[in-house]
């Protein structure tokens, strides 16, 4: 369960404060899939980044599985991400100096998993890259890189999978493949999935949608609890 209570974000731009996200309340039950949609600059990625603890909100509280992450330090956040959150980026962000297999190993090694090798291989197999493990990111196509990124995101079997425009850099065929993988995970493992997208079709596949414009929530659809969560 993810809960956002009055979460906002203001940054300084040219010496002036600029509010990217106005106070927002949101509750995402376990196992649900939510699509955050909206035009460029509406605050989608910022919202996702805040949920992952990649940035701190200017005001408000974010609670994941009962843990208030807004009060956590950098390292505690890193541990939380390692244990509970998987992240898929638009630009894949694989570590260039590591092979595909090693990229998948890293989160497990960080979490102190013993013998992570077999699981890494299984995950690569699941995303259809069993035979590409020894390749470096630069030797893989965009679609393949994104699938490695997905395998990496799933390495520690996270309760929450966040994806920032996961198909934004892929052709439709590769994009479709990644989408199927994402929703498959959501269904099979009951992993909560939050994705930011421009793609209406993709958004429509989610259980719920939130539409943002200029940092405000302008629309909520289906099965999303819009009321503030009971504290």
């Amino acid at each position, binding site marked *: 369960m993810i809960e956002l209570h009055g979460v906002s974000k203001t940054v*300084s731009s040219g010496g002036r404060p600029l509010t990217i996200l106005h106070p927002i309340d949101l509750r995402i039950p376990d196992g649900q899939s939510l699509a955050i949609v909206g035009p460029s600059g509406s605050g989608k990625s910022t919202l996702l980044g805040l949920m992952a603890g990649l940035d701190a909100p200017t005001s408000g509280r974010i609670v994941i599985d009962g843990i208030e992450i807004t009060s956590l330090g950098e390292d505690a956040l890193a541990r939380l991400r390692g244990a509970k959150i998987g992240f898929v980026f638009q630009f894949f962000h694989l570590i260039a100096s590591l092979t595909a297999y090693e990229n998948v190993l890293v989160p497990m090694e960080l979490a102190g998993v013993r013998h992570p090798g077999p699981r890494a291989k299984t995950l690569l197999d699941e995303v259809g890259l069993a035979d590409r493990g020894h390749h470096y990111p630069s030797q893989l196509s965009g679609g393949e890189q994104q699938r490695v990124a997905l395998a990496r995101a799933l390495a520690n079997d996270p309760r929450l999978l966040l994806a920032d425009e996961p198909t934004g850099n892929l052709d439709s065929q590769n994009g479709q493949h990644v989408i199927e993988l994402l929703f498959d995970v959501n269904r099979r493992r009951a992993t909560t999935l939050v994705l930011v997208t421009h793609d209406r079709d993709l958004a429509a596949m989610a259980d719920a949608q939130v539409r943002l414009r200029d940092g405000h929530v302008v629309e909520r659809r289906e099965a999303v609890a819009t009321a503030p969560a009971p504290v």
Partner: protein
Amino acid sequence: MTFVLRMVGREARASWRRLLFFFLCVAVGVGAIVALRSVIQSVRGALVAEARTLTAADVVVSTNRPWDPQARARIDQRLREAGAVGVAETIETATMARPADERKAVARTVELQGVEAGYPYYGRVELEGGVPYTHDLLKGQGALVRPELLAQLDLRVGDGIVLGDLVFTIRGVVLSEPGRRLGFFSFGPRVLVDFADMARTGLLQFGSRARYALLVKVPDARIDPLVQALRDDFRQQFINAHSYRGAEDRMNDDLARAENYLSLVGFIIVILGGIGVWSVTRVFVRQKLRAIAVMKCLGASTAQVLAVYLAQVVALAALGSLLGLGVAVLALAALPAGLLSGFGAVTPGLTWSASLQGVAVGVLVSLLFSLVPLLEIRHARPLLLLRDEAARQSSVTQPDGRWWRRIDWVQVAAALLVSVALVGVASWQAASWRAGALVCAAFVAVALVLHLVGALLVRVVAPLRMTGWFPLRHAVISVSRPGNQTRTILLAVGLGAFFIIGVRSLQANLLHAFRIDLRRDGPDLFLVDIQPDQEAGVRQFLARAHPSFPAKLLPVLRARVTGVRGRTLNLDGFDEVRGQGSLAREYVVTYRDHLEANERLVAGAFWDSPSPTPEVSIEKGISQRFGIGVGDTMRFDVLGRAVEARVASVRQVEWADARSGGFMFVFRPGVFDAAPKTFIAAARGPDSPADRARLQRDLVAAFPNVSAIDVREVARTVEGVAGNVTLAVSIVGLIALFAGVLILMGSVAMTKFQRLHESAVFKTLGASTRTLTAMLAIEYGALGSLAGTVGAVTSLGLSWGLCRYVLDVPWSPTPGVAAAGLVMTALLVGVIGVAASVDVLRRRPLAILRAE
């Protein structure tokens, strides 16, 4: 921990090419420091191993004046108390020797030593033909001479040789003797005679330059107490006592100076390596920010990531240091064989202590220099992966951020810690807090200047953004863009230039101190120890010998400074003067009423008439080095007489022009007119060697106690010694230059990684290779010129400080070195900047853009 180690392995596998340069920087620095230190330690080791044979005794008590009976009685008492097993007296003086056979018209300056029966207590006098040395060989006017003297005077064993008023018989040929080392300066070949005969030669007249010594053999445990007791007894007198352990005492000055110089240069090379390390680490961390953000996003803590990169640095530094040991071995093998011959049988090899120190310094300096750039890792926030700008804003500035909130205090604290640690390492390496602090203070000062100059440059060139010429406009934009390489290059190159030009300038000054100029029109023959009653005779003799060159006879006295009362320096008694190094030595002084052609007044006024009130004019170097100025009072001991003189003026002496000789202290006439003194004469001898030999022979025949110093001969000897020193200094300078240039090249080349993306975008947008090359040349050329200027100007300060405060040699500015350094730096940075980017210019942009 396993994660950290695994990541270190993986990262090293992927980035070793980029870090290769890091590795090389460390290797070159460590190689230099280990090689230099090993040489010093080998020389030291060889000297210490034969220390007892160098002094030929356990304890040597010596003075430059005939023994004062009272002092002598005191010494004898001390020797008895210490249970001295043996005492042998010796006297050394430079004098003229000529064949007893009048038909041989030659004479030579020799270093005559009269020795008593016990000599030498340690070491051996080695004679030709394996003849064992005994004192009996000397008894009854026997002499042992060096083979070169036999050749020069055309003599054989058994022939007669005239020394002063006596004729000696040559009884053997000395191949080696204790305490005499090849390659060191001497006035002439050694002649050994009996101490008892020496006194009868008539050579030891008033004011003669001679060294009187007592060689003492004493039980080991009594050595140090005896030396201490004698030093306490004669604290205010000009009597020295040292043990064989302090045999270094005599050569310590030379060796310590060499060691300070070599260690400093070694350390400077390591600092240059450190700058390279800093530059590499900085670029490396920037390139890795995204990977670091990914790791943090996947659950790595800052400490874990920091550990991954710190461990890489340590591993690389350790490996680089080991390679450095290999470099040192090669360097030592390549050392010219003759370079160390003056120190006896020295075979320089890696010493354990030098190797350990080198590796320790390599790892330490790498850690210190990479720490600050590595701390950047803390700022790599995972948000960077979502959007670059947002991450920077939220991590660096707060909406209400005041300037002090924007400062990364951890990094500031780390920088301070690194500075303190560097002072520590520098002091350790140079074996002197003063040298270490000086080098580090200079380092920090130059870094600050460069920082300011960088900021100034950005402001000054800002208007050029409006220019219509694309390459210039973009070069300016590139220079002023935030997060660019302007500061890195300025700092790395500026500091590099500062140290390299500084070492070159230091080298020029050291070599200048060893340079001898022989002018065609100047005197080339100096006669010393002329007694007052011989003045007229010598004058006539010289006038006959060379009518067209009127000889100049100067009265000289030998004096020691025993006190100073001044505004900046106050020394009460000889004991305190001793603490000032070279100020305590014996000076030859004169008096006259005019400045010589090679002198120029710097401060005060020079007298033109005699006065009964003592006044002295001091040389500029003395004034600067010891902070003595016009109006101060100096106390001298002039042959036992205390004279207190006011400093009336400061003179600059052009030492290279020795026509009129050079004196550190010139007194006002009127005080010493009636004092006992000797004269020296500056004359010009005939050009042909045969005529010169004849002249010297005639001179000795007429005035047996007068010694002739043939400047042409001396110059040859000095050139031999100076040649070795020059070679050594030049080799060290060359090592520094090579290492420095290599490191600078790398530092500049590293900055190309920051340009890859930008160049690719420019190419995509239609920029030609030519335009991009022009842009690069302008930018790197400007940065190089600026860094070179700052480096060149500040390096003069470095060489001045080191000459004055550390090496104790006179300093003069070296504008040629500075100018050449500036031009070289600008060219080097410009050329390397462009050359390193050749592949950037050549590569297809798509590959780079995809990789990004």
